[in-house]
């Protein structure tokens, strides 16, 4: 059996057509291998982007104006934390909370350089101190507590700071009586923090249990990709569980599964549509309808 049965197998963000070879090594480090990313990096501020799903060339501004959704095939590009906040929150409504916490290298984890250095570099590159961005926001006028996992920060992996910020956000949501809206895009637990990152699965769930008992309401929207310890903890147990179209969502990454069972995976396996059919998500919501849908669901959550 494959050894990679842990809930933290990494992933790349490849689109559906290359599924089956999709899951790659470490979150973040795999980026090197992603053609899409290289292209973006190769042409900083480039005017054109090639869609990795349909291979059509897209005018960058068109893509950005379309919430990073391919106008030809509706492929949902992975967006970073800042883009997500802009996409979801009413203009100017976002106020960041718990922004100052930085990862600690408590295990003194070394592999091709120290974890501490990796975090520092990633923070400089992304402009965020950690993989979870949290704060107050309004969505179509409805006040919420918003959490966004940024895949660009070490693959959106969950370490102590991510778990803590999620828990703090649950408490903030409970005290302000605001719905909690969380977006995930993550390879799972952050290996560099060892068992401390595993324990964040329990921390986030304990916070959700408290929020729920306090009468709170929570929605998770899973974006491409969401796997491992994030799927196997808070992401799957919020009151409502939504997914973006075509997102890879699962416990183990497809490469781990393919290696374990030594056979090819069926087409569409572990995509949002597959999860919907199997009964694991409440609805699939395209980005074009995201804000309105969230607003509507929040309205329903307050009763008749």
């Amino acid at each position: 059996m494959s050894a990679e049965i842990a809930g933290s197998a990494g992933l790349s963000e490849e689109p559906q057509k290359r599924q089956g070879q999709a899951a790659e090594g470490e979150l973040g480090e795999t980026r090197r291998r992603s053609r899409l990313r290289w292209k973006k990096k190769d042409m900083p501020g480039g005017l054109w982007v090639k869609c990795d799903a349909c291979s059509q060339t897209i005018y960058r501004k068109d893509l950005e104006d379309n919430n990073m959704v391919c106008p030809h095939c509706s492929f949902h590009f992975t967006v970073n934390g800042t883009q997500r906040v802009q996409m979801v929150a009413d203009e100017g409504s976002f106020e960041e909370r718990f922004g100052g916490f930085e990862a600690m290298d408590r295990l003194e984890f070394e592999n091709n350089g120290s974890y501490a250095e990796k975090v520092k570099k990633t923070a400089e590159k992304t402009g965020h101190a950690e993989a979870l961005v949290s704060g107050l926001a309004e969505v179509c006028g409805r006040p919420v507590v918003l959490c966004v996992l940024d895949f660009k920060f070490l693959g959106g992996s969950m370490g102590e700071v991510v778990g803590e910020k999620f828990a703090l956000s649950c408490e903030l949501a409970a005290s302000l009586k605001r719905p909690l809206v969380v977006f995930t895009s993550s390879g799972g637990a952050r290996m560099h923090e060892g068992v401390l990152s595993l324990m964040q699965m329990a921390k986030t769930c304990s916070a959700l249990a408290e929020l729920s008992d306090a009468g709170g309401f929570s929605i998770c929207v899973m974006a491409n990709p969401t796997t491992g310890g994030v799927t196997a903890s808070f992401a799957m147990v919020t009151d409502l569980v939504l997914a973006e179209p075509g997102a890879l969502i699962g416990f183990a990454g497809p490469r781990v599964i393919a290696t374990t069972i030594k056979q090819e995976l069926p087409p569409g396996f572990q995509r949002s549509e597959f999860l919907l059919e199997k009964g694991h998500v409440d609805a699939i919501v395209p980005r074009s309808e995201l804000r309105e849908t969230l607003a509507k669901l929040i309205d329903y959550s307050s009763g008749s």
Partner: protein
Amino acid sequence: MAFEKPIQELEEQLREFEELSDRNNLDASAEIAALRARIEESIDAAYADLSPWDRVNVARHPERPVASDYIAGAMDDFFELHGDRTFGDDRAIVTGFAQVEDQRFLLVGHRKGRTMKERLACNFGCAHPEGYRKALRKMQLAARMGLPIVSLINTPGAYPGIGAEERGQAGAIAENILGMFSLEVPILAIVIGEGGSGGALGIGVGDRVLMMEYSYYSVISPEGCAAILWKDGERTPDAASALRLTAPDLMQLGVVDGVIKEPSGGAHRDRQRAIDSMRRVLLEELKLLKEIPKAELLKRRRAKYRHLAAVPGRFPESGAATP
């Protein structure tokens, strides 16, 4: 296990010696005693300085006691309860009513099996979603009955397969973790072998979490970590060290509450002694846990995991808005 080689050679010598003296009716008690002492010494020497990777291999030793050994050897009664009432009965997880002396409880555990046939039937301790759902269902029943829960953790990880994903492996584990924060009975979790990631935590939320001395508990297997971070399977021992997955490491980090000492040379050398130690600790722990007022139980369990192993003062007590 390379570090066991010299010990095994001495043990082989001892066996031969004993046979020889039996056959020839010789009194070799002095030599045998000396050999025994040498074995003890070499065990102590080898086990005094085990690397984390060595410890992982002890935790996986085929002769190491598994859940069925603890049930047979430590429980005075056991009545197995099968199935999740929805899909099937996952043999990789065992659940049932158990009794030790005057203490009745619900036992939940990963089941690895001992013979190859059993191991295959139990999928080597890698549970499917229906296993986690069975566990949650029985734990919720136990909570209604006022029975404490004892969880024996021993899994390489939850199974990564097509059926497991189809039936919602991630959601099943998540529901268990969340659900265990609402069970109003004491939960004692003991890692008896492998504490493999989310698959372990899926039955591992406890008011007290203990580890057998040579068990391990990790976010990912050392092999998986080496493959992903080093892209080199040869670096597995390095990954095992980096992950800080041994019982002393977890004690130091503040993730677990106690370590149950194993017989010298590991539980596989003297299963019954390991089982007896576990039984003694289980009784003590259950008695202490039962003293916690019911109203306090969930509050304490949630607060424990809310702030588990955190560096004091690093994070605020709560995220609630200050008025």
